């Protein structure tokens, strides 16, 4: 089995799962490659669901979420598989 390389991503954290899933729906509708992941400690919360996106999509994602009144409460850059 080949060990995969980590790559950079941007993660958005939300106060509720409801908001996180609403964000997922908005970003998926715009064909962005969004993946729900367990919220990483760097977001300041040790549980919950965060949304991971490629860094090149971060700006557009932020604009889409703002337009949908879904501003993330936290944002971080991480490396992930």
């Amino acid at each position, binding site marked *: 089995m080949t060990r995969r390389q980590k790559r950079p991503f941007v993660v958005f954290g939300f106060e509720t799962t409801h908001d996180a899933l609403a964000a997922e729906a908005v970003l998926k509708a715009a064909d962005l490659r969004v993946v729900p992941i367990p919220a990483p400690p760097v977001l300041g919360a040790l*549980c919950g669901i965060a949304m991971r996106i490629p860094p090149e999509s971060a700006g557009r994602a932020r604009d889409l979420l703002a337009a949908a009144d879904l501003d993330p409460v936290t944002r971080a850059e991480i490396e992930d598989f």
Partner: protein
Amino acid sequence: MTPEDLERAAGDSAVGGVSAYFDHAATSWPKPTGVVDAVVRALTVGGGSPGRAAHRLGLEASREIYAARTACAAFLGARRSKDIIFTRGCTESCNLMLKGLLRAGDRVVVSSMEHNSVARPLAVLARLGVEVVRVAAHENGTMDPASIEAALSAPTRAVVCQHVSNVTGTIQPIAEITRIAHNAGAVVLVDGAQAAGHLDVDLSQLGVDAYAVSGHKGMLGPQGIGLLYLNPELEVDGLLEGGTGGGSETVEMPSSRPDRYEPGTPNTPGILGLGAAVAFLGGEGAAQRDQEQLLTQHLHEGILDIGGYRVSGPAPGSPRGPVVSVVPDSGTPPELAAWLDREHGIACRAGLHCAPWAHETMGTRDTGTCRFGLGYGLTETHVDMLLDALRVYRS
């Protein structure tokens, strides 16, 4: 489900030959096939814990709940789905909106037609120092907005009124009451247990501040699920604290909806069943609501033609929810209900229906009534069966 399936379901009760089910005001039966399928799926295929883990089973459960909440909001005319709070039922919803809002020294105006899911929490709040002002409805069960306005002469925190009476089917003028209450600076809290699913409820038009919904009556979902709509501007305290799947590093509850009011693992099968019920009501079930109105009028007029029964509530032809309550001239409501079940396999309910205030208003406090609640699955054949039986009982 075809009409033939419904006829068969209504006639093949697993508990022994119910010919016609007229207890929809208590709980709807049978449920649409899609509701049953959704509950089974939640208990088998998609049984993860929602709002917690990010593995596929947990995420799928979370997404299904999100979809159900969004569907409920759209069905009820709520602008934001996060303002839909899932509860164990309408009783919990009423407790949340009342106990979450009212404090010692507050004054609340309430209709005399309320169910005990409102009357009993208010009794507790009265002992804690809330002033409860009960306003008498007309003897047909209708709240006169002018009576509410007169009761708002003193500063009032809230007006509480049901949307549809569970005893008489009376539809209250909620939009007009809301306008009057807001002009007086009071918020409006509504028990919609008997309205949602039966009437076209549009919260954006009603303008109320809180609206409590039962999931298992007209909404056709499973028992054990309900919801509360909270206006985005209305802040109430939650009834419970606990884990919400996020923000676990603090002992404080999150401030955001819906998590603020939904600690603990949610009732995923119930919520998904309710979501499926809403999909049904918004589709093929829409015709059911029109049919309910026609059948209710047919039953009401048929009982009056037979004679020998006093019918509570609005006059024939007036708008009403799918409830017809009677007191027989001979015998008692419990005797009539038991006879209908024993001799004809017709299910209905006798008594005070957990609404003693309403019976005081109607003058039926000492007898109660025999209540026929109509809903999904009933046909004209069933109503004629009931009318034939009532004709025999009277003879």
